[in-house]
Every structure is written in structure tokens, then in C-alpha cells.
């Protein structure tokens, strides 16, 4: 393992702690806007990580990617969400199947599981363990948000968190993918978000609410 990789690994590990904090906070968050802000913060942390890796690896592309993350995930998507909240005028509280305390416990459990799961794998690929665990924790937390929250909007946030986790996993294991693939992934997220936004509007127009648990009436 070279000196640069080690340094980059240290940075990734250090910032992973912040990611765990956002995970716990998101699990506890009661308001939708808090959730969006936390997502923005999370994305900012990842952007910093990308930039640091770019600095160490002397990759100009990484700066482009970091800029894209800032543009899209730190500013663009949260802004779009706030616009969406205004337009939909749905109640701001997150309706959850689990209470805030329970959610935090689940998030803690997820973090433990992530560390447990990546332990054997991390040493094999010379990837920083903390960062890999953080990525797994992000994926699982995103999925957990999608499972436990009733509102379609929070489920979108869950998907974005999940995507952040996948991005981080790719970053930690490969130290940056080619630019073209990164851009492709961004487009993917954007298009997915657009579609989901459309569906959210359709759900509201059809059912006058955003509670997806009522969708079960569609079952044949």
C-alpha cells in the first residue's frame, strides 16, 4: 500500500464518522425538511471525500465529479425537494412505522452489522474499513428509510441515501471511477428522481394524499 493511498484512506475513514452521524440523525429526524438537509450534508461530505482523493491521486476528473456532486446533490436535489414540498403542501411531519428512538436503535444495529459484514472483505481489497462500512450503512439506512416511512417523498430520500451508499462503495473500492461512468450515474439518479417526482404528483392527484400504504387497494 503506497503512502498516498494510506493518506487517502485516512481521510476517507475520518469523514466516515461524519457519515455515521448523518445516518443516525436521519433515522431520528421527525421533519421532512430536516431529512433533506441531512441528505445535503451527507452529499457534501462525500464530495469532500472525492475531492481529497482527487488531490492525492492527482486526478482532475475527480474535481469534476466533486463539483457535480455539489451541484446536484448538495444544492440541486434538496432545492428541488423544497420546491416540491411547497407545491404539494402536504404535512411536514414524517409518518413512520417506528418511533424515533426505535429508528435510532435500528440505525445503530445497521452500523454494527456493516462493520461486521465488511471486516473480512476490507482487508482483501486494501480498502479503508470505516469507509466501506459507512457505505454499507448508507445503503441499508436508505433501504430502512424506504421501508419504515409511509410518505412517498421520504421514500425518495431513502433511495437517494441508498444511492449515496453505492457511490461511496464504488469510491472506496476503486478510488474513483472513470468520469463518463460517474456522469452516467448522475444522470441515472436525476432521471429516477424525475420519474419519482412525476409519480408522486400522480399519486397525490389520484388519491389526494401521499401515503403509499393506501396503495395496497390496487392489489388484485
Amino acid at each position, binding site marked *: 500500500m503506497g503512502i498516498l493511498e494510506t493518506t487517502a484512506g485516512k481521510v476517507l475513514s475520518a469523514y466516515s464518522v461524519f457519515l455515521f452521524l448523518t445516518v443516525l440523525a436521519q433515522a431520528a429526524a421527525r421533519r421532512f425538511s430536516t431529512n433533506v438537509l441531512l441528505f445535503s450534508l451527507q452529499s457534501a461530505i462525500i464530495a469532500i471525500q472525492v475531492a481529497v482523493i482527487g488531490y492525492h491521486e492527482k486526478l482532475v476528473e475527480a474535481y469534476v465529479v466533486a463539483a457535480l456532486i455539489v451541484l446536484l446533490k448538495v444544492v440541486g436535489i434538496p432545492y428541488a425537494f423544497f420546491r416540491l414540498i411547497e407545491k404539494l403542501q402536504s404535512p411536514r411531519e414524517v409518518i413512520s412505522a417506528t418511533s424515533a428512538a426505535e429508528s435510532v436503535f435500528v440505525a445503530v444495529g445497521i452500523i454494527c452489522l456493516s462493520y461486521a459484514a465488511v*471486516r473480512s*472483505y476490507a482487508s482483501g481489497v486494501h480498502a479503508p474499513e470505516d469507509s466501506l462500512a459507512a457505505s454499507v450503512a448508507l445503503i*441499508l439506512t436508505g*433501504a*430502512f428509510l424506504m421501508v419504515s416511512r*409511509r410518505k412517498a417523498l421520504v421514500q425518495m430520500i431513502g433511495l437517494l441515501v441508498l444511492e449515496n451508499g453505492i457511490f461511496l462503495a464504488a469510491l472506496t473500492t476503486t478510488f474513483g471511477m472513470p468520469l463518463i461512468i460517474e456522469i452516467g450515474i448522475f444522470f441515472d439518479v436525476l432521471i429516477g428522481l424525475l420519474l419519482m417526482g412525476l409519480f408522486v404528483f400522480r399519486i397525490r392527484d389520484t388519491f389526494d394524499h401521499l401515503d403509499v*400504504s393506501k*396503495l395496497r387497494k390496487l*392489489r388484485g
Partner: protein
Amino acid sequence: MAVATLAGCGASGHSLLNSEVRKLNPSLLTPFPFTFSLDPLGLFFLILICTVSLPVALFSVSYVKRHYSAARQKWLWALLFLFVTSMAGVVAASSGFAFLVCWEIMSLASAGLILIEGSSGDRRHNLFIYLLMTHAATAAVIAAFLVFLPHSHSLDFAAIRAAGATLPPGVRIALFLLAFAGFGTKAGIIPLHLWLPRAHPIAPSPVSALMSGVMLKIAVYGFVRFAFDFLVGGPAWFGYLVLVAGAVSGLLGVLYAIAEHDLKRLLAYHSVENIGIIYLGLGASLVFMAHGARVWAALALAGALLHTLNHALFKSLLFLGTGAIADSTHTVDLEKLGGLQRRMPVTGAVFLIGCCSIIGLPLFNGFISEWMIFRSFLGGSTLTNSIAQTLLPLIVGVLALIGGLAAACFVKVFGVAFLGRPRSQEAEHASEAPLAMRAGMMLLAAGCMVIGIWPGAFLRPIVSLAQSLVGAPAAPPETLLIARVIPWVAAAFLALLAVVSVLKRAKRQTPTWACGLPGLTSRMQYTSTSFSKPIRFVFGRVYKADRKLEVLPEDQPYFPASISYHSVRTTSYERFLYRPFVDGVVAAANQLRRLQTGNIQVYLLYIVMTLVSLLLYLRLAG
């Protein structure tokens, strides 16, 4: 089609004589080994397919024209061709993949042919049962091939055969049971026969002839291929299992047949019975093999194979005869037929030949094969194993009972349908079938007669085939004996006939005595139901009939205005065997339905749970 079948006949006959193996290998086009080649066993069945398909095609030429619109005719011919070709493909296949593909096409093509006749709700229900059971059978067959795969590393028959000798006993048993259940369902052994009396009557008559005459034999082929060629026998209880299945199918099949008066259903039940006889032969052969009596095993197997060919001939003949009757009277209900012999003499004559063959009268083909199976059972007394020594000869009694009941049944069929007076307007105005139909039936009847009178030519290849399958050192002497004796018996019989006809006295024609009543009516005759009454009475427990007697008006029991009597045979298999099974499946499906909540979060939860458990597994395993 006729040309193609002829070509197939010629090709197979040619290669049988030269005993060379032709190979076809289109595997280059497919991801799996998809190969065809003909060995003697496949050839025998290919000849069976061709010899039956050709007359049936001939029969169909005029039958189809008279019954279906031009568009349906095209469909029927196309499907019929596909059906026959796929059956030929099954017997010619030399890899599991080719076998299964052709097998599946065969099942689907026959279902398509049934649909051509019409698609009312009732028919669709019966067809559904057929498709369901045939696919359950296919699933078992696929499973059997897959069980072979870890041991043979290839679905090629040569590899499977090589692996067959070295299988562990547990795998052997699993394989045998899978093949037994899979092919048994397709062959229609009781209690897996449920689809058979439902599917055959609703198909067009030529198709019934092919389904009953040939398709069931493909299942027999599959079973012989697995049990004899791949597994080369096994422990004795394999044989006893097959014997019991054969005995039960044979006996119950013929008993159910007697109670039927729908001619097609009756013949369908007789197919169950004859498959039972074939399985008796196969079972005896397996038992003999297990006890090392390979010459006897060859005799039993040769009897079973010959009976397969014979049944293909006379059963398709009888179904075609039924088709001819339906063609001219528009009914196959025995209670509405009668007096057809005078109106359809040729059909009557060939139908009589079919009847004599199926009940195994000497000088007809059924006799030869049934005699061989009989003889092999009697040979069981030479074994040293005490169970086999006592059990096998006892089965002769079962066979004899089957034969006797079959005779009663066909006396009923022929007597009620062809003799006496017509029981309906339609039967009264029946007329002889057209030339092509008669020709098709006559070809099959000729086949029955030739095998019955000159069995030597047919026995030699079949016996050598059976010998090679069971590894017998010599041909059983009994076959030589019967091949030598039968032509002389035939000659003696002909001579006797000639003498009798020369010495015959002049005919004395008088009106039939009607017990003093003025004139005879068709209502005085035995009906199909009344003829079979004594047998149904004796075997009452088998039928579990629901009887209902209605006397109207109810207050005058001695001077009623009308009496009606219904006797409905309940199918206890459905009630006691299939119904609980179906209910269980439906209940399980309802339980599974709970997984399908329609709630997005629950689906997401499934995904998360899978992820988490996989991660946990990774942790624990690593």
C-alpha cells in the same frame, strides 16, 4: 403427411434390417446437445408410430373433409403432422434435451388437436386436467434427467447409460420412482389415469386413435428406456411395484370400461387396461432380471413390447371404427346404436377383428402377446426365490380375469352396436363409411391378422431386441414354439371352416319368437347397461354407484305413470385422492398469498431482509 410417414416407415424398416445406427446432430444450432440417433429400441417404436400413423392419416383424408371447415382442416393437418413428427422425435432422440423438447411438443400438439374439435367450457376443463397432468408427468421426467446429470455430466444417452451402471442405490431408487411416476402418468396407469378417460373422448376420432394407440406407447418407450436401458433393472421390488400398478390398472381399467356406454370413454378405459397388461409384462421382466432369470425376463419383455405394438394396432383400429360410426350416426352412445352390421358391413367386419384382437382370441395378434406374458408368469415357478415363486404364477389369475372381463366387454360393444335392431333414428339410417376411411381401417385390421397368424416374422426382431435389453444369453424357446404352431393352427382352422361350409345344411328361415308378443321392437333388446349388469353387480364395491329411483306420481307406487332410474358411477379417485391434494395446494397457495400484500414497504422490507441476511451470512461464513 402420408408420403412422409411412408418415408419414415421405409427408412426405419431399412435400418432395422441392416441394424445400422443413423445419427443426426443439429447440436451446432442449439446450446444443449440436441442429437438424434436410432438404436433398435427406438427403431421398434418408430416403426410402431409409422405403421399406425399411416392408416390413421389415410382414414383422416376423408374423415377430416367431412367434419371440419377448410381453415380447421389446415390446422388439423398441420398439428397432426407436428404430433406424429414429435413422437418420432421422442423415440429417435439420443440426448435428454432432444427427448424433452419433442416430448413437450407432443403433449402440446395433442392438446391443440383436442381444441380443434371445439372449445366449450366443459371441454376446456377436461383439456386443462389433461395439460395439468401431462405437465406434472413432464416435470417428473425432467427431474429424472436432472438426477442423472451429476453422475453422467451430460444429457447424452450414451453418457447416461454409462453412468447408469455405477449409480448409488439411493439415486437409483429416486430415478426409478421418478421415471415410474412420470411415464406412468403419461401412460395412464391407475390412479394416475385421471386425464385419460377425459382427454380421449373429446378429441377427433383419428386423434384419439393416435393418442391412445401411439402416444401412450411413447410413455411405455420412455419407461423401458429408463428402467431397462439406463438403469438395467434393479432390486426385485421395482418389478413388484410395476406388477402391482399393472394388475390394478388392468383390472380396474376393464371394470370401468364395462360400465361405460360412451364408446370412446369405454375404449379409453380399455387403454388403461392394456397399459396395465403391458406393465404386467414389464414388471415380470424386472422381477426375473432381479432374480437372474434372464431368458424368462426376455420372454416377458418381448411379450410386453409385442403387446405394445398390438395394442397400437387394434386400439387405433377400434377408435377409427368408432370414428366411422360417429361419422355416419353422429353418436358414440352405445344405447343409441344397434343393427349397424347390416348397414355398415365393412366397418362391422374390421371392428369385429379389432374386438377379437383386443380380447386376445387365438389367430389374432392380442393372443400372441398375452400368451407370452402368461407363459412368463407361469415360468415364475422355476425361480428359487420363494416370494417370486408363489407370487408370479398367481398373477396369471389376474391376467385371466382381465381377459375374461375384456371379452365380456367387447361382446357387449359389438353385440349392442352392430347386432340386433337400431335403437335410434340415426342408427337406422346409418350408411357405410367412405372408401378412404374403410381403407385405413382395413390396413390396421390386416396388420392385426398378419401378426396373429404369422407371428414368427415379427417375433424374431422383437425377441432379439428384448434379449439385448435384458442381456439374455439365448432366445426363450417358447417364442419359437408359438411362431411354429400358430400358422398350422390357422391352416387347420381354415380347413375346418371349409369343411363346415361344404357340409352345411340348407338354411331354415323363420321369424324370431317374441315370447308370444306381437312383433319385436328395439326396446326388447339387451341394452348396454343391462348386459353389463351382472358384472357390475358382482364387482359392486369397485363402482360405488349412486343409484336413484324415481317413481311418479309418488302416491301410486304400483301403477306409476313413469319410472326413471339413474345409476351414476362416482369417480372415487377424484374425491379421495385428487381432491385433498388439490385442496392442499390451494391452501398452500393462499398462505403464500399473504406474502403478496400489495404494500410497497413490505416488498422493500423483503429486499432489505434479504440483503441483511446475506450480509450476516457473509460475516458468519467468512
